[in-house]
């Protein structure tokens, strides 16, 4: 009986939890509701270009299709200090000239940034985190097992 309940619950939960979309009619606001930061629709578009330059579409979806720009915004808004947030907003502002530029040009711009650039560090780390933890990658590429049902401590590999 318990098992059936558990399986039923699995179905309910598997459908849930996508990034909440706000219902704002103001077209200048970003797509998702944020608590601390105020990104415009324009910022969001620019971020989509930037994350796409980090993880582009190939024969599989890239960062834009996976909505990683929205994920980056969410994480900067909720999981970073006010100092980090300030650096991020400034870094994004400085990136404005990249609007409409090719992925190659954006990548070149990234490579000119100093190693310790906070904006780029946050952008890249969060894009990678969002990618590795995305439903697409975890279901299709680097498979995540919710219920392994086994442990083998000595599996032969070719190395």
């Amino acid at each position: 009986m318990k098992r059936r309940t558990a399986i039923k619950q699995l179905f309910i939960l598997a459908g849930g939890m996508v990034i909440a979309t706000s219902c704002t009619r103001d077209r200048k606001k970003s797509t998702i509701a944020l608590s601390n930061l105020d990104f415009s629709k324009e910022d969001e578009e620019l971020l989509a270009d930037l994350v796409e330059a980090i993880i582009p579409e190939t024969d599989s979806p890239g960062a834009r299709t996976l909505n990683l720009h929205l994920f980056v915004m969410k994480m900067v808004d909720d999981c970073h200090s006010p100092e980090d947030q300030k650096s991020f907003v400034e870094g994004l502002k400085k990136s404005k000239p990249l609007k409409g530029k090719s992925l190659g040009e954006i990548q070149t711009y990234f490579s000119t940034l100093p190693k310790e650039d906070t904006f780029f560090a946050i952008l890249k780390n969060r894009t990678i985190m969002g990618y590795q933890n995305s439903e697409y990658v975890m279901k299709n590429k680097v498979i995540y097992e919710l219920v392994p049902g086994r442990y083998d401590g000595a599996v032969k590999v070719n190395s």
Partner: protein
Amino acid sequence: MAYLNIDSQKDRTYDAIVIGSGISGGWSAKELCEKGLKTLVLERGRDVKHIKDYPTTNMYPWEFEHRNEMPYQVKQDNPIVSKCYAFHEDAAHFFVKDNEHPYIQEKPFDWIRGYQVGGKSLLWARQTQRWSDFDFEGPARDGFAVDWPIRYADLKPWYDHVERFAGIAGDKDGLPELPDGEFLPAYPLNVVEKYFKQSVENKYPTRKVISARCAHISKPQPIHIQQGRTQCQNRTLCQRGCPFGGYFSSNASTLPWAAKTGNLTLRPNSVVHSILYDEQKGKAVGVKVIDRNTKEEIDFYAKIIFVNAAAINTNLILLNSTSTRFPNGLGNDSETLGKYVAFHNYSARIYAEYEGLLDYTVEGRNPAGGAYIPRFRNLYKQETNYLRGYAAGFGAYRSSYADTSGLGEDLKKSLLNPKLGSWGVGSHMMGETIPKASNYVALDKDKKDEWGIPLLKISIDYDQNDEKMKKDYLDTLEEMFTEAGFTNIRRDDNWQAPGLDIHEMGGVRMGLDPKTSMLNKWNQLHAVPNVFVTDGAAMTSTSTQNPSLTYMAFSARSVDYAIKEMKKGSF
């Protein structure tokens, strides 16, 4: 849960009251109910029903808003609980937040709490190593605390009893310092853990590396199926609550079992204020509760009372139970209540890498977490410059990594094709600390919480013995790691504050002499025999083993005794 008519005293009277529904309270309740006593279980937090109230249990990583990372503001607002390894998006709802239940730290103490039905049994690390006479004889041999009023033989049948029901996976290792039990099949050590075992045991015959024993159903028996539990599915997402009942918790096991008898009344949202003592009758008659939500004061009555509020809160309740007879806390003739609190020294870890056995990896996940090294220091005789010793956890994992230095297609390709790295290995210490009168908890004279209960002051610290022991642990493990050919050895001796080990014990210690202890060998208050304390508060000393299994065994043993005494008319 039965509807509670609180109008008449008769309706508020039970055979037994259990304060707390965590790992020991659940056991007290199960045993009392099975033996036919109408039992009221009081839980200060909200109800958590098995499976139904595990909202995150089947969620995938991408379904968490922040992919399981705690938001910045939550961490800022909760510096204490944020230090706990399990405090993430998937289980944060089972932890007490710092500002909800403040306490006074005279010395830094990271008090980790779970206020809900099931308590911390939902969140525990599920390690279940028995204690032995090397532990129970420790205080007498080494001259600290007071002698335990029991020995391993007193507890053995009750370890057997609770292990069979809870489901404990482990090997029979034949070690006197870590007695064997009623085990389900053990989880295997992986290739590197096995290699380390051989390396250690060849070089040091008195040191053992075994598969850690844990409260997971590796192979369900009829008794587990009857509880509605099934085989552990190796998810290792236990802190969310397990839909399979694969690990032991009050919620999955003892509480539903107690409920099936028809003798259980579970009352969540019931903050216990104090135990009511009747001066004429010379015994406890009930428990004063403040309803968590309405703040209404309600008294419940019973012939016997089991205090299982978790070590520190059990101290708080007894300290706050004052009367003319006991002005300094219930049963506190010895003036030891709140004192001799101890814990496990978890303040050091050591990590390294292993470049061998690269043609192997692991698959699936190991709920036991890997290996366990029982205490070998000062076991048969005193041999170091500090008292007692430490046990250690040991685990090996095959790391996988992706080169993230690139950008664009290169980066993407690298992320989608993670490479197996070297083996990572790690160990943490669990050191016995010496209970001292100067490590204490007490009530603040002025400050009260929102239920009108005095705030607790906690004054607990490490000492020189802990410092020497820690150094020895690091030196010894480094030597064992070096011997095994591990490289890049990193010592981590970050002194985490006491409390974060979540193994706080004592304050209501057992002992032979009522002048120097609170409880007798049956966990009865010497001075108030119808009150039993069977959680961590009762511990005279701490051993080096994870304590929960021992609380379970004490609870079952104590109930058995209480019922025999009731039949004789003692209460």
